[in-house]
């Protein structure tokens, strides 16, 4: 059996590319955009988000037979909120500067629709190992969009990648200027809109 045919691979690849959580499901864009001014913050945000979505999937899937149906949302929120607190405290302890830049947006992972959506839609009805892989796939899909937006914004907004300048001094001397709009909120909306357009166009042309 080829690797790409296994159930585990499909569980990973579907959310990471085919049903990418940002473009296709339109979920979880809330906290995604505010941290995309720099690649560094976007990368840390991706790690935090992947940790929370995969661990919450694993824990909720382990408990799926003992969670009573009518209070399941509260149980899920409690699991997710505890994991977010863990991630937030970890960042404050070891990466204080970055946690200052991320400000409230790590906390807002709690209300990210992807996580509750995966807990409800996948972890409650699937075994733990698949729920963990599904969470990782969603984290990677989320991260790929986040990092591409951050790449465009940092490259054109401040002429650097991960904080290293890549635009040569001679270009600035010749009159090149960084685009101030890339640092502001509207650019993120427009970039995400254009990316959704490309992805949907490709999906449409594959169908026909």
């Amino acid at each position: 059996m080829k690797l790409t045919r296994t159930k585990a691979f499909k569980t990973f690849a579907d959310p990471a590319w085919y049903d990418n959580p940002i473009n296709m499901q339109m979920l979880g864009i809330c906290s995604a955009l505010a941290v995309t001014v720099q690649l560094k913050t976007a990368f840390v945000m991706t790690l935090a988000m992947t940790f929370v979505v995969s661990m919450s999937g694993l824990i909720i899937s382990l408990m799926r037979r003992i969670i009573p149906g009518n209070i399941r949302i509260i149980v899920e929120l409690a699991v997710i909120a505890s994991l977010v607190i863990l991630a937030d405290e970890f960042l404050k302890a070891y990466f204080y500067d970055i946690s200052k830049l991320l400000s409230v947006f790590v906390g807002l992972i709690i209300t990210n629709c992807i996580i509750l959506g995966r807990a409800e839609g996948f972890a409650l009805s699937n075994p733990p190992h698949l729920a963990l892989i599904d969470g990782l796939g969603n984290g990677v899909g989320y991260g790929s969009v986040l990092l591409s937006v951050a790449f465009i914004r940092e490259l054109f907004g401040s002429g650097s990648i991960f904080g290293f300048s890549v635009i040569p001094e001679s270009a600035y001397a010749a009159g090149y200027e960084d685009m101030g709009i890339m640092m502001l909120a509207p650019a993120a909306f427009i970039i995400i809109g254009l990316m959704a357009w490309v992805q949907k166009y490709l999906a449409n042309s594959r169908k026909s």
Partner: protein
Amino acid sequence: MVELVSIFLNSVFAGNILLAYFLGMCSFVAVSKNIDTAIGLGFAVVFVLTVTTPVNWLIFHGLLAPGALAWAGLPEVDLSFLKLIVFISVIAAMVQAIEMIIDRFSAALYAGLGIFLPLIAVNCAILGGSLFMVEREMSFIESVVYGFGSGVGWLLAITAMAAARIKLRYADLPSGLEGFGITMIVTGLMAMAFMLFSGITM
């Protein structure tokens, strides 16, 4: 007084919680298809933000902030790491309580807002309002004004978006741009317009 007016104006325009901080996007994209539901949800957000932000202020400064438990003989206890889980529970409980109160006292208002209230418990704008209130170290009265102003800003943004999407129905868009793509681009243009207000100082 002037500071309060400037907090209000900033939270409605230049620091709009949706257009400058990206909070509440999920319901913004999903609900702005229809103008009546958009306005209904907008008012529900104004209402819930105005109530939950001050309530969370009281809880944070009365129980969770460093040194807040001095009255109980525990001056060095710092429970502020619990704020995330406490705030989300307070919001869920407040939404539930507001829903019951409205149901009891005003059938007309319940018919208008009732269906939107459960949606709001997981709207990031509500939790974001409370977290920004803590981060910016506001006083109680400032938190009331900030909560109300953020709600009004969100209401303005979603109403404008719903109105723009009515016009977009008749637009001939290239394949793939319809729906989510064009919504985001229009939001970006709207965010640019709202940014112009940042030059105004009191």
